[in-house]
């Protein structure tokens, strides 16, 4: 005897309400793309529990509509509950069962993709080798110890830790880093152009000659946030030195071309704001990038990256070709030809880690077959009745 709540969860009414809400959500989320970038729209409408109004990040707001995650979750529960409640083994129902089982696979796959997939980019100039890819949106603050003979020693601080007031300590650093201010999107101006009352952003480096201002987060399709951070470096008091005097503050931003740095404890240190990196146990070297066009036109015909894949662990050393619609799948990651830069010589590869990429393939086959079987049954029955009517 199913409880009333279970009855509600497995009810057709709930399905219909969810489907209607999904329709509205998708429609509104499509129109919103005229004014907002795809990432913003995704976060606001599709990858959220609720759509909030007004849409700004601060201040009072109310949920006005269920978001994509909430609707997806309810539909998934609804589907499973209905399956549990109504499941009966019979040949005439097999099409419907398959269809809905396939949908469950698909929704679960979507959920896992949202939770676990990572998208990043690998940009390679000819001859360049990289064993890491870079995030397209998240940044990190890298503190680089340049004193090593062959290698730099890098300590990377993820963007999420860069909140004002945060104190960062790490065993590889002989000093503390204190975040003085953090600007998710900013513009930097030189001090002498900013007017008399302007205050320099930092005490040392370029920051002493510059003013940084906060601007709203970028929303347009191709706009990118320019992050800046001001940090103070304070040595950790050791047994010999009791008082630790601040070394000063530095402005670090990916808008600044000149590296920011200082010398301390007999080593030279560099501070860089850069896209967050994902390191891999293998590397890719770009040999050549080709961009073919149809003769006599500017219409692109193909983009291709000729690269060498080296994996010391697995003893792989081979040539790979990555081109349109033909990605490289290696070690649960997939590299796609995504773009090009520097006058068609350098390549941009998109690197996707998606453990549940098989789900849609499976779901498509199962649902497709299910619908086909179901409608064929319908159609056959209908034709039989029709022939009977005509015969009479």
């Amino acid at each position: 005897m199913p409880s009333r709540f279970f009855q509600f969860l497995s009810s057709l009414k709930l399905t219909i309400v969810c489907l209607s809400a999904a329709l509205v959500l998708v429609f509104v989320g499509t129109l919103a793309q005229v004014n907002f970038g795809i990432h913003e729209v995704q976060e606001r409408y599709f990858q959220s529990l609720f759509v909030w109004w007004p849409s700004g990040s601060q201040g009072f707001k109310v949920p006005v509509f269920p978001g994509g995650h909430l609707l997806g979750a309810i539909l998934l529960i609804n589907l499973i509950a209905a399956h549990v409640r109504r499941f009966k083994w019979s040949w005439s129902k097999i099409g419907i069962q398959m269809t809905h089982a396939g949908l469950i696979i698909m929704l679960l796959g979507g959920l896992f993709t949202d939770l676990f997939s990572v998208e990043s980019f690998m940009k390679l100039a000819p001859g360049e080798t990289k064993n890491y890819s870079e995030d397209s949106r998240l940044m990190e603050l890298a503190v680089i110890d340049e004193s090593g003979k062959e290698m730099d020693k890098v300590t990377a601080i993820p963007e999420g830790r860069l909140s004002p007031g945060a104190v960062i300590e790490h065993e590889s650093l002989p000093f503390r880093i204190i975040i003085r201010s953090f600007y998710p999107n900013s513009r930097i101006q030189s001090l002498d152009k900013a007017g008399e009352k302007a205050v320099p952003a930092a005490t040392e480096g370029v920051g002493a000659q510059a003013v940084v201002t906060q601007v709203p987060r970028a929303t347009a399709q191709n706009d990118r946030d320019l992050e800046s951070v001001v940090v103070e470096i304070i040595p950790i008091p050791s047994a010999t030195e009791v008082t630790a005097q601040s070394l000063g503050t530095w402005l670090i931003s990916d808008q600044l071309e000149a590296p920011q740095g200082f010398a301390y404890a007999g080593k030279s240190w560099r501070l860089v704001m850069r896209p967050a990196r994902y390191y891999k146990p293998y590397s890719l070297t770009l040999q050549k990038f080709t961009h073919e066009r149809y003769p006599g036109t500017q219409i692109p015909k193909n983009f291709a990256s000729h690269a060498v894949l080296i994996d010391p662990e697995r003893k792989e050393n081979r040539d790979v070709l990555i081109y349109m619609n033909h990605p490289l799948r290696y070690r649960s990651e997939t590299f796609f030809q995504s773009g090009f830069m520097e006058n068609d010589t350098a390549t941009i590869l998109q690197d996707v880690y998606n453990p549940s990429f098989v789900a849609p393939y499976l779901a498509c086959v199962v649902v497709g077959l299910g619908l086909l079987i179901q409608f064929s049954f319908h159609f056959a029955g209908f034709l039989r009745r029709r022939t009977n009517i005509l015969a009479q």
Partner: protein
Amino acid sequence: MKKTLPWIILAIALLWIASNSRLPKNIPGELDLVTFGKIPVLSDGRIKPLDTVGRNALLIIHGKQSLKLNDGRSIDSTRWLADVLFNAPVADQYPSFVINNPEVLGLFGWEQNTRKYFSYTELNPFIEKIDGQGEKVEGVESAKRTPYQTAVYNLRNSLMLYQRLKNSIRPESAQDFTGEIEAYLKAIPGGLEAIKKQQKGEKISQKELDAFAQFTGRYREMAEMAYLLPVPPDSTGASRHDEWLSIGASLMGALATDSIPPVTKAYALISDAYHEGNVTLFNQQMNDLSSWMVTHEPRPTSRSAFEYVFNQLAPFYQAMGLYVLAFLLVCCSWLFGNRSLNTAAFYVLLLALAVHTFGLGSRMYLQGRPPVTNLYSSAIFIGWGTVIIGLILERIFRDGVGSACAAVIGFITLIIAHHLAGSGDTLEMLQAVLDTNIWLATHVVCITIGYSAMYFAGTLAAIYVVRGVLTPSLKRESAQALYRMTYGVICFATLFSFVGTVLGGIWADQSWGRFWGWDPKENGALLIVLWCALILHARLGGYIRERGVMVMALFGNVITSFSWFGVNMLGVGLHSYGFMNKALPWLIGFMLSQLALMVLASIPLTRWRSFQQND
């Protein structure tokens, strides 16, 4: 009579098709533009006959495929192209350029009056102005352009295309091109020698060098401007090259080889003959060039010849005529209760389908691609799909409804295709990411069949509502038949839309690394799937019945149109390959009409004329 009438009507339709299908013939003593039209050239990345080049160029520049001259004569696109290529000074006087926007005319200080076509000569003084204005527009996203900006940008592109065309075969100012080339070939050894000497610092005749530099400058410019690449690859002669070349490039090639390809020579002779008005010489040279092409480039030549025939036959226009005929026959059969007219309509539709299929197949052969590659071909394919659905339903129900829907949608989609063709070559080359026949054949075809089925269901519902509310003709039986048909077609639409959408996701996963990106076109497809699912579940739960399914099917028309056209007008996303402002009022009008039908359907059943009398 009952049995023979359908056959008689079919025979008449066949005769009509046959009479429309006569290919143009050469008239002795006149210019042989038939042979000219079939000659293959490479332009916009594909090999096509000059006939296609002329049609598309005139469509872009003039907005039509024929041109009415100031003296009242009318010339076709082939004749126009020949004039532009070989006799530019004359073509410059033709009122080729269409300007509809009064603000663009204001740019030149002209008032808008009845004239909207202008000649190159008239526009020539303003070219720099137009170019400057157009360049400014280039930075503006196409979705955000004002009508003036779009108009001035299009005019600039038209002028550029025209200038490139008229310098493709011969320099527009040339008088005796053949003689000029001979002089150039003679000047090459001396010229090269002079350059070498100059580099060594020896004394040279400046006059000789200048004359030589004038040649090369002229041909380099031709090579840069050329819109057509008419010289096929050649691996035999002295002038070796493995790609199609422009006339200018082939002349520049002579610097290295001392000789020019025979095709370049032939074009020089042809253009001189045309320029002088020497018909006999022109026809003779044209024939020589044509036979040279047949021997040396058999495949491109036969393909081009086929495309020429395809252009002349214009199967989609003929199919449109047949759809109208079929629809009229069905209407007559309903009015007079004559079943044999209905059979006739079925036969005519079969004929229309054959013609439509021929057109679709020809395009596939010419392009070497699955049927749908752009918005134009999606319209053609949606029409084709609905006609097949309609014919199948007609075979089952035999009440004319299937035929009527097939005829109406077939006709409307072909009209839409006709209007989409205005932007140029409909067999254009595909962007790199689309260059995959597997996904074009599966994802795109499934989605498009889904559209077909949605429109079909919507049209059935429209028939149900109009007949039911406004006429007493919707008997219980026919209402039920319509309902069954609609439901069946929606099931069909669900299957294809779902599979098509997921296949699209898989394609995206293959080429961009993500299954779903909430791109507008993807969302459009998802909306159709959700809507179908909603109809099926609402019906299953008993929330809607016969009328409810019909109302929802009508709204399916709105959703499908949004998905097919509407999202492209947003001007954002990865699929925004066909932006058209012009279609917006039509789209909104269509959506409103469907909403009106839905309102009509929601008046109480007791007020429906059909049900008042029945019950």
